[in-house]
């Protein structure tokens, strides 16, 4: 039967293995509840040591014993009012300096402290050698026990230290000598406190003096109500600030770190390179002042190689399924129901399947893009990209934080507009919102991919990369000009960014994020794009001249064709002055994906493919879908492999052969109906000019609405006017310049 009862508290920073040590000490003899009147969990356990009944209280994980959080107040009040026989301070040996801050505060409370130097195996792994005896001496004889909570190492020594502390109840004196000015004021306050017995009975005078100087919220006015003492504390704090230039709390905190630094320097030896981790070494290259940007561009180029080329076989497969079997089955089903040749069949095949399906075929493209970006994000590189781009932004006078909304703009412009709220100056917000529209959002990608693939085949990845890059350049140039004219304010503040260690991407997380982003695109296809496709079909079904019937009118003679013809001459100098192109661009004001959907409706309205004249055969179709899917997967693998030669072939003198798993020319046969139609209606130069226009022109209506909500109608009108003008000028320069340079019409 135990005869003596002692109370031990376990304190420590969060995530230092405190709970592991608590469990190892108390086993199953635990009780979990809440601290009285608080929602903070209180864990208590028991341990029997040679007739001593030890109650172990696990205090909440805290970094200090100030009054900044409820956990800190709970821990501090327990130590002050419950008078534990000893406090075991569990410290992470691998992050000793940070963890010793709490230890210094425990020592200032004048309670017996035992330091459990936990995770010492990890510290050794990092090349740190900690001399426990020297550390103990530096902490004025505080016992220091090396422990590894996960395997129980040091547990017996810790139990012995508990027994000794319980037996001796020896208290350690505060060991930190602060700056002379501070010590002078502390001594004065300490004297004043010692003259008030009600306080000395409850608090250690020096600790209370420190707390008064720190203006600790929980002490000043609550624990201490003596007006004279509080006034003396305020006067002392003012003298310190006027003499040193910093407030007392800063000097006290600084004094603790100076003390920790001297203790650690005598007790810890570390290899010269210990301060530089592997991530730091990688960052020396990836965030380098000169190489950082080219590396970022190379990685982006690889992302677009993957986006445009790797996804191409699956896009072709999906397109073949939608325009082939799906259209055939729909037509056959409607025919069987008696709707063959009706407006309903036209609506379903021309609006829903051609319009929405024409957009959905690009799901593999978006999956590839978001997968690649997800890998960069999860590996920790995206933070470096922001870091590298911050320098570029600063060069043109933009705030580094502006890049954060711009980065979001590569996915969707709407959240990018709202993300400008992180900028504190209204001018910076407006300027950044103005620029985010030039960051090519995911919705524009299908336009680039379908046109790029139609005209430039395997080089489409580079073309898409070039368009994204052009968007960034235009944004920076616009920002540079506006910063010097319209939005002049203070120079941007530099910031310091935490760079997390690099790690292998977690595929599950990457996939979850990829799907989350792609599913938004799919949802949009089923709502906004579906509605727009139906609206455009209706406009294309309404004849503008007598004689023609509803849904039986030639597209160019429809209301849509007639209206589009009105806008077409405007685009003639840019090389795409056709009603089809202008119609697609106007519909793109609703959502950028609609440009592709509209082109599908115009150029391939339920286009019967070679097999459509035959009666649909379910088994044949299913077999065909299965075999073509297998082929698409093989070609996808081939494109993945070919990223290597395509990348190396950039280097002059290298001409590495590309893999061809299924024999030459397989992909050439997989041109979609829309791609084929585009090559007949655009010249390559006009196609590039068209893509430049899509890149730069007015954002979608949801973005416009977000901008109006955030910045007002005037801002939006300027934005629309500027982007339309810039897009037109850009497209004309590309087309006319290309003609002058002899790239052909």
């Amino acid at each position, binding site marked *: 039967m135990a005869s003596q009862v002692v109370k031990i508290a376990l304190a420590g920073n969060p995530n230092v293995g405190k709970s592991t040590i608590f469990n190892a000490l108390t086993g199953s003899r635990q009780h979990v509840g809440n601290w009285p009147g608080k929602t903070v969990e209180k864990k208590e356990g028991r341990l029997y040591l040679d007739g001593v009944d030890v109650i172990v209280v696990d205090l909440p994980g805290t970094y200090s014993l100030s009054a900044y959080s409820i956990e800190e107040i709970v821990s501090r009040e327990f130590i002050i009012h419950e008078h534990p026989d000893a406090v075991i301070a569990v410290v992470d040996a691998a992050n000793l300096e940070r963890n010793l801050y709490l230890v210094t505060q425990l020592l200032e409370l004048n309670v017996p402290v035992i330091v459990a130097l936990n995770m010492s195996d990890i510290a050794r792994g990092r090349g740190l050698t900690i001399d426990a005896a020297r550390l103990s001496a530096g902490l004025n004889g505080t016992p220091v026990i090396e422990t590894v909570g996960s395997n129980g190492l040091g547990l017996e020594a810790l139990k012995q230290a508990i027994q000794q502390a319980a037996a001796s109840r020896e208290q350690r004196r505060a060991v930190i000598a602060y700056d002379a000015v501070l010590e002078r004021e502390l001594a004065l306050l300490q004297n004043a406190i010692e003259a008030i017995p009600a306080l000395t009975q409850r608090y250690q005078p020096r600790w209370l003096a420190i707390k008064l100087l720190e203006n600790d919220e929980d002490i000043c006015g609550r624990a201490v109500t003596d007006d004279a003492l509080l006034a003396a504390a305020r006067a002392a704090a003012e003298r310190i600030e006027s003499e040193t230039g910093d407030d007392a709390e*800063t000097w006290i905190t600084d004094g603790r770190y100076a003390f920790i630094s001297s203790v650690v320097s005598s007790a810890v030896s570390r290899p010269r390179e210990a301060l530089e981790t592997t991530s730091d070494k990688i*960052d020396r290259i990836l965030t380098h002042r000169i190489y950082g940007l080219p590396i970022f561009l190379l990685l982006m180029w690889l992302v677009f190689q993957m986006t445009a080329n790797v996804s191409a076989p699956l896009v072709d497969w999906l397109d073949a399924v939608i325009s082939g079997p799906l259209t055939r089955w729909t037509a056959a089903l409607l025919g069987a129901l008696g709707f063959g040749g009706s407006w309903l069949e036209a609506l379903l095949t021309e609006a829903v399947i051609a319009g929405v399906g024409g957009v959905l075929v690009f799901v593999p493209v978006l999956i590839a893009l978001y997968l690649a970006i997800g890998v960069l994000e999860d590996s920790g590189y995206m933070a470096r990209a922001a870091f590298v781009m911050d320098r570029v932004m600063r060069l043109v006078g933009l705030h580094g934080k502006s890049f954060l909304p711009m980065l979001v703009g590569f996915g969707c412009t709407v959240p990018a507009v709202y993300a400008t709220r992180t900028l504190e100056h209204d001018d910076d917000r407006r300027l950044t919102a103005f620029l985010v529209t030039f960051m090519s959002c995911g919705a524009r990608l299908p336009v680039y991919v379908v046109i790029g693939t139609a005209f430039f085949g395997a080089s489409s990845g580079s073309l898409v990369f070039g368009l994204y890059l052009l968007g960034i350049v235009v944004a920076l140039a616009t920002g540079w000009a506006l910063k010097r004219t319209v939005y002049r304010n203070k120079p941007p503040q530099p910031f310091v*960014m935490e760079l997390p260690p690099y790690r292998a991407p977690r595929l599950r997380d990457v996939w979850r994020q990829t799907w989350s982003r792609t599913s938004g695109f799919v949802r949009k296809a089923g709502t906004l794009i579906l509605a727009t496709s139906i609206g455009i079909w209706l406009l294309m079904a309404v004849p503008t001249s007598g004689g023609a019937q509803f849904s039986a009118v030639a597209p160019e003679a429809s209301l849509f064709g007639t209206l589009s013809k009105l806008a077409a001459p405007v685009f003639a100098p840019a090389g795409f002055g056709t009603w089809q192109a202008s119609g697609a661009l106007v519909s793109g004001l609703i959502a950028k994906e609609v440009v592709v959907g509209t082109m599908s409706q115009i150029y391939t309205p339920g286009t019967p493919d070679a097999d459509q004249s035959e009666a649909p055969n379910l088994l044949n179709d299913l077999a065909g879908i299965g075999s073509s899917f297998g082929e698409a997967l093989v070609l996808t693998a081939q494109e993945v492999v070919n990223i290597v030669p395509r990348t190396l072939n950039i280097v002059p003198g290298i001409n590495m052969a590309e893999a061809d798993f299924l024999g030459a020319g397989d992909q050439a046969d997989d041109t979609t109906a829309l791609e084929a139609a585009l090559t007949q209606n655009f010249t390559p130069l006009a196609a590039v000019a068209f893509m430049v226009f899509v890149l730069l022109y007015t954002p979608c209506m949801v973005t416009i609405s*977000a901008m109006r909500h955030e910045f007002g109608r005037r801002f939006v009108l300027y934005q629309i006017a500027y982007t339309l003008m810039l897009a037109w000028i850009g497209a004309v320069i590309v087309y006319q310049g290309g003609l002058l340079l002899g790239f052909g019409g």
Partner: protein
Amino acid sequence: MTSQLREVLNRFDEGAVPRSLNQMAREMQLELGVLQVMIDYWVRKGKLREVGLAGNACVTCGTNGHCPFIVNLPRAYERVREGEAEPNPPCACGGGCSV
């Protein structure tokens, strides 16, 4: 007389180019964790400000404020200028509220 804590602020004031916490810790011969705590101290005192993107932006696309396009970048800090207002937090409601 300059405290090490003050030195952290001074480095923010001097910094003409963006820097990483790791780089600053190396320059100051500090553990990264200690620098982080020192920065937290100045954030509490209102001398530094944490910058970055919150998780939510808008609900216009039906993602109920959990926009998948928001890139979660690590924390970054900047100096607070005298008399400078706090930035508006990105709003989860996407419009209509007074934030």
